[in-house]
C-alpha cells in the first residue's frame, strides 16, 4: 500500500486558496488484458484533488497518464479494466461516492454536471454531421430536462462567448471551425452543466503554441470565476510548471513524484523528474550542452524488477532492483525513490 499524497496546505499556485478535497484516489490499478496475461498500465495510484485546484499529470507515452484519465472518469473500454482501488468523489451535497463501483445509472447522472472531460482530438469528440449548437443543446437538455430549447440555446451562446467564440458560430459544423476554435468549443461544452471537476487529456497538444497560450489563459480565467477543479494531463512538463498548482509525475504506470509546481521546479527529488526538468532547453537562459535521459521508457509488459526507472537512473544501486519503492514524504513532496537522501547528498 502506498502512502496517500496529501497536499499539506490548501493553497495553490500564487497563493490561491483551495477548497476541501473533491477527489480522493486510492491504490488505483488498471490492467490491459492481453493474450499474454494482464499488463498493468496504471499501478497503485493514489492522489487527492481539492476544489478549485489544477493538478497536472506529466508523463511520456506509456507512462499510464491517459489510462489514469479514462479510469478516473470510468471511460475505459475493454481490454482495460480497473483491477483495484477506489476513486472517491465528494460532491458538495450528498454522500461521497466511489466512481469505480458506482452503477452506470448513477454515474450517468454525475457526467457533465459533476465531472466533464476534454480530450486531445476535438474532431473525434464532436459529431461531424451535427451543428455545434445542436450538440450543446443536447448536452444541456439531457441533464436538465426542465430547460426549454430556447433557454438551452441562450445558454449555448453564453458558453461560446465565454471561450471567445462568436455566438453565431453555433450554426457551424465542426469542420468549418479552426482547430483552435474546435478545442475551445470542447472546453465550453465541458463547462455546459457547471461541473466541479474537468479532466483534460492533452487538450492543447494539437494546437499551435500561440493558440495554446490563449486557450489556457481563458481556461485559467474561467476556472477562477467558476472554481472547478482540473486534472490536466500532458507530456509537456514546462507547460505544467506554469499552469498547475500541483504536479504528479508518472513513469511506467506509477506516480514517482507528486508535489507543488514550485517544489517540482525548484527541487525535483526523483531522478526521473530531475531528468525531465533538464530535458527542456531553456527559452531565454544561456544555452549549454544538456543531456536527455539515457535509454528509453520500458515495455509495460516486461518491466524491470524493482524501480522501473532503475535501468536509466544514474543513482541506481542494487537496492533499486529489489522492491518497487513506495511514495513517501521527502521534503515538501512525495517521492517513490529508495535513495533520495543519498541522491541529494551526491548533488
Amino acid at each position, binding site marked *: 500500500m502506498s502512502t496517500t499524497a496529501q497536499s499539506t496546505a490548501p493553497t495553490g499556485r500564487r497563493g490561491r486558496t483551495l477548497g476541501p478535497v473533491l477527489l480522493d484516489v486510492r491504490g488505483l490499478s488498471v490492467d490491459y488484458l492481453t493474450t499474454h496475461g494482464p499488463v498493468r498500465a496504471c499501478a497503485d495510484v493514489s492522489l487527492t484533488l481539492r476544489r478549485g485546484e489544477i493538478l497536472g499529470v506529466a508523463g511520456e507515452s506509456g507512462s499510464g497518464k491517459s489510462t489514469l484519465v479514462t479510469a478516473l472518469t470510468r471511460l475505459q473500454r475493454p481490454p482495460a479494466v480497473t483491477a483495484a482501488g477506489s476513486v472517491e468523489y465528494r460532491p458538495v451535497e450528498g454522500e461521497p461516492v466511489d466512481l469505480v463501483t458506482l452503477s452506470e445509472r448513477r454515474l450517468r447522472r454525475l457526467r457533465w454536471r459533476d465531472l466533464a472531460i476534454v480530450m486531445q482530438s476535438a474532431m473525434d469528440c464532436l459529431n461531424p454531421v451535427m451543428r455545434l449548437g445542436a450538440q450543446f443543446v443536447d448536452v444541456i437538455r439531457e441533464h436538465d430536462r426542465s430547460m426549454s430549447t430556447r433557454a438551452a440555446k441562450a445558454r449555448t451562446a453564453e458558453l461560446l462567448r465565454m471561450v471567445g467564440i462568436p455566438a453565431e458560430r453555433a450554426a457551424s459544423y465542426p469542420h468549418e471551425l479552426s482547430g483552435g476554435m474546435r478545442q475551445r468549443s470542447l472546453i465550453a461544452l465541458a463547462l455546459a452543466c457547471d461541473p466541479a471537476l474537468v479532466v483534460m487529456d492533452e487538450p492543447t497538444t494539437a494546437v499551435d503554441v*500561440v493558440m495554446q497560450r490563449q486557450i489556457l489563459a481563458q481556461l485559467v480565467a474561467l476556472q477562477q470565476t467558476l472554481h472547478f477543479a482540473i486534472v490536466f494531463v500532458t507530456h509537456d512538463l514546462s507547460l505544467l*510548471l506554469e499552469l498547475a498548482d500541483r504536479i504528479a509525475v508518472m513513469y511506467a504506470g506509477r506516480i514517482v513524484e507528486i508535489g507543488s509546481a514550485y517544489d517540482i521546479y525548484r527541487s525535483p527529488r526523483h531522478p526521473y523528474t530531475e531528468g525531465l526538468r533538464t*530535458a527542456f532547453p531553456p527559452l531565454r*537562459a544561456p544555452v549549454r550542452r544538456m543531456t536527455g535521459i539515457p535509454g528509453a*521508457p520500458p515495455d509495460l509488459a516486461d518491466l524491470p524488477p524493482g524501480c522501473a526507472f532503475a535501468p536509466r537512473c544514474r543513482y541506481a544501486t542494487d537496492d533499486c532492483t529489489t522492491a518497487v519503492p513506495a511514495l513517501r514524504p521527502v521534503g515538501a513532496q512525495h517521492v517513490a525513490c529508495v535513495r533520495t537522501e543519498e541522491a541529494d547528498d551526491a548533488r
Partner: protein
Amino acid sequence: MPGDQPVLEAVDVGKEFPVHDRFGGSRAVRAVEHANLALYPGRITALVGESGSGKTTLARLLALFHPPTSGEIRLDGLPVTAATPRGEYHSAVQLVFQDPFAALNSLHRARYMLRRALQLHGRGGSRAEVERASLDLLRRVNLTPPERILDSFPHQLSGGQRQRLVIARALAVQPRVLLADEPISMLDVSIRLDVLNLLATLRDEQGLAMLYITHDIASARYLADTVHVMYAGQTVEGGPRDSVILQPKHPYTRLLLDSSPDPARSMADGADDPFAGVAEAGEPPNLADPPPGCRFHPRCPFAMDECRREFPARTTFADGGWAHCWLHRKGRTGELLADVAVS
C-alpha cells in the same frame, strides 16, 4: 569547419498550389512567398513557425519534391533545373522526416534499409564492405550494439532508435546537406535532447549543412546557429539565434516567444502570472485568400496603413539579425524593442 559559401540556397522562392472549390473553380494557395534561405557547411539553420506557415513546403522545395513556382534553388551556387540529375542531387541533399514510424518500411530489417541506400548511391561493393559501412553508420548515430540493431525490424526499436536509423540511412549517401523536418516532435521528451545532440555532433564533426524545421523555438535556440521565422508563407525574421530569440525584431516572433512555455521566467520570484493579460491574438490567415501586404497585419498590435498595402523590405541590424517589418522603416523600432528582455 563552417564554410563561407552556401551549399544549398533558396533564392526568392515561391510556391503556389492549385485548390479546387466546390463550384469547379480553381484558386491558388500561396504556401510560400519570397523565401530566402541559405545553408552553410558546419552550420544549422532553424526554420521556426506554426502549422501552415510554409516551413515544410520550403523544405520540400529544397528536397525537389515540388518545383518552385517562382525563384530558384541553388546547389553549390548553380541553379537546379529540370535537367539536374535527381540521383546526384539527392546524394548531396537528404531529408529526415518527422515520423520515424512511417519513414521505415516495417517489413525490412535495418540491414536491408542501409544496404539499399548504400547501393542506390553507388557505395555498394562486396557483402563485407556493405556490412562494414552499415555498422559504421549505426555507430555514427550511436545505435548500439550495431550488430544487433542491424538484424532488427523497425517495431523492435524504440521511437528514438528509429529516428536514429532514419538519420543513419540519410547519412548512407554521404550527403552534404540534411533537411530535418520536425525530427524530434514525435519522440518522447526524455530522448529528444539526445537526438538534437546527435545532429549537433554531425554538424561539428562532419561539417554537415543542416536545416532544422521546428515549431519549438526553445529547441531551435538550443541546436541552431541561425534562426529564421516564417509566418503564413513569408519569412519575417532571421539572424543569429540569440539575436532572434533574445531580441526579436518582428511582432510575430515576439508573440511566438511570449506564448512559449518558459518556467524559468514564470517561476522567478515576483514574476507575473504567465496567463494573466494574454490578449486574444486571432489566428493565422487562410492562404487561399491571404491579407495583402504583411500577412501578419490583422493580428499585429502595431499595424499601420503601410502594413496593409505592401510587404516591407528587409531591415538589417548591427547584431546580424534582419526583419521584414514596417516599424523599422518608419523609425518605430524602439516601440518593439523597448520592453524586450535582454540577457
